[in-house]
């Protein structure tokens, strides 16, 4: 696949998602009304070549569903997904399978995402086997190369997953994701299950691999600190919608949505000191609402420290200024 470094003006972005929606019908027993869970509600974003887009949000925000729908692992109910301009939704199963080599996923839990009965070398080789890429000898040497690439030793290929630590298992998962030389990797909370010291190793590895291989990441995380370290662009999701999206520097230096500001106030920081009498300012009330009962008006209004009467009745439309998108009646700044 042609993968020139950097975007030229005419080339389409690597991944373009337009108005994507995903809903799941919920069964409610024999006599209950049919309910629909609206997990993703009309979101649009692009991922450039060699770039990382962060999808940030809390549980139930739809960030994982949105990313999985963007690579057709979940079927969207509406919207368009273009991979280098090719419409993924229009492809039949066979053609979609051929596209799969350009797409990969790294999951959160390196314990459950690796088959405990397989040797790790075979786990990393599996995508090549399934897609019939290369001869057996070529696959073997590719796996060796992948092990070195992610900081493991080729002599560890014959071991089983349980013989590795959490961080090493995540390296194995990364090697497997890289096997077919994909253009886009969906990273679904790839460091959330790891200790901080190991987390740093994996985040640095992902960035190094991006620099060396020109990879693009769709990076799902609840942790804005992590997102700041790996993402070029950030989309903040709340209840199935993107409520704010901007280039990293812009989002972190001038967050405009009250929800983004609250997330920043809740993210780890060493500057908020008890010794200095720190007390949180923009405290958000309550829990994220259920995607089964989406409130009218702004979805965040019920928890927003700045909500006005209008916010509860009228849903704000997204507005964009200099590539900074905000969905709020009263954005800050």
């Amino acid at each position, binding site marked *: 696949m042609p993968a020139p470094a950097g975007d030229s003006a005419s080339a389409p972005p690597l991944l373009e998602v337009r108005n994507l929606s995903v809903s799941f019908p919920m069964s409610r027993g024999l006599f209950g009304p049919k309910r629909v869970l609206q997990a993703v509600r009309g979101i649009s974003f692009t991922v450039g070549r060699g770039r990382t887009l962060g999808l940030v949000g809390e549980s139930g925000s739809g960030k994982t569903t949105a990313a999985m729908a963007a690579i057709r692992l979940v079927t969207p109910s509406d919207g368009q997904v273009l991979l280098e301009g090719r419409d993924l939704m229009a492809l039949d199963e066979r053609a979609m399978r051929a596209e799969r080599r350009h797409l990969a996923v790294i999951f959160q839990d390196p314990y459950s995402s690796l088959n405990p009965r397989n040797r790790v070398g075979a786990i990393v080789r599996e995508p090549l086997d399934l897609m019939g890429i290369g001869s057996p000898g070529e696959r073997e040497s590719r796996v060796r190369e992948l092990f070195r690439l992610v900081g493991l030793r080729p002599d560890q290929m014959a071991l089983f997953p349980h013989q590795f630590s959490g961080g090493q298992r995540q390296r194995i998962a990364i090697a497997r994701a890289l096997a077919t030389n994909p253009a886009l990797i969906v990273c679904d909370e790839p460091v959330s299950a790891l200790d901080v010291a190991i987390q740093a190793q994996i985040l640095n590895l992902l960035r*190094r691999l991006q620099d060396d291989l020109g990879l693009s990441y769709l990076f799902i995380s609840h*942790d804005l600190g992590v997102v700041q370290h790996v993402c070029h662009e950030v989309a903040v999701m709340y209840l199935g919608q993107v409520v704010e999206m901007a280039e990293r*520097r812009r989002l972190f230096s001038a967050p405009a949505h009250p929800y983004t500001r609250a997330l920043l106030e809740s993210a780890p920081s*060493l500057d908020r000191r008890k010794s200095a009498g*720190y007390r949180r300012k923009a405290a958000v009330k309550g829990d994220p609402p259920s995607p089964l009962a989406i409130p009218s008006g702004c979805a965040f209004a019920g928890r927003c420290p700045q909500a006005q009467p209008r916010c509860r009745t009228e849903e704000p439309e997204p507005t964009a200024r200099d590539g900074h998108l905000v969905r709020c009646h009263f954005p800050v700044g």
Partner: protein
Amino acid sequence: MSPLLDVRDLRVEFATRHGTVTALDGVSLRLEPGETLGVVGESGCGKSITALAIMGLIPMPPGRIAGGSIRLDGEELIGAPERRLRQLRGRDIGMIFQEPMTSLNPVFRVGDQIAEAILLHQDVSRDEARRRALDLLRTVGVPDPGQRIDAYPHELSGGLRQRVMIAIAISCQPRLLIADEPTTALDVTVQAQIFDLIRDIQDRLGVAVILITHDMGAIAEMADRVAVMYAGRVVEEGPADAILDSPAHPYTRGLIGCIPAIDPALAALDRLPPLAEIPGVVPPLHLLGQGCAFADRCIEAVDICRKVAPPLTGRGHAVACHLHAAAAASEES
């Protein structure tokens, strides 16, 4: 002032299939009334075992308290009769754990579980206990306490369940509250609410808190003093500001350096520097040798580090590191 809690030279061993391992190796901690001590470290460092030991909840066997002393207000808890420990737990020592769903009984209404805790330790009527349970739900910020008092745990969100746990923990006005990763299973905005609540309660009741966490951000926000643990030992201990601003142990420095913290200075940078890494992983306890447990991962380690385990030395800000001790000694002379 005599400390509320005085743990000295605590040794805890576990029988494992690799033989006897030392899970805690001479841990000493002091806690003044009303103070918050943060205990921080990676998985397996012994922070939760320390909490369990203080509560007299080490499973024996396979565990064994091999030495040391734990005094609460001067009273020795090691070797105290189980009846006495049960009296102290829940009355003088309140506890909050990571996963509120597994700590609450799923088949009883939350109001009854709070009332139960009150009836266990206080001579009041059932009606009075229920009235107090309602008050407590209000205190911990559960909305609609009159209705929620009759809810079952599964009908509440994770954040509300943790609030119920806190209500139980403070139901008898304890002098010591042990919070073991109380927010790890919660969404970030809910985490912030729980931290705010713990600080509120501390202000109101004057309760001392031991906060066990892997999160240096939580330490900054919550703790007066900090103990950093590694492989069953306290490697650095002191005021939170001293630990965060001038960490002396190479492990503490690494732990702080590897956090992807939110920092306004980073928001302006075109490209963020890679995170600091601590190479390798925490060694399994059965493979600990004679020397400093961190030596294998320490870039500054010298010969003596691999031969002799350094003692924790220094007043106020104490450090267990040969290099630091040598530097301090040469500064003095």
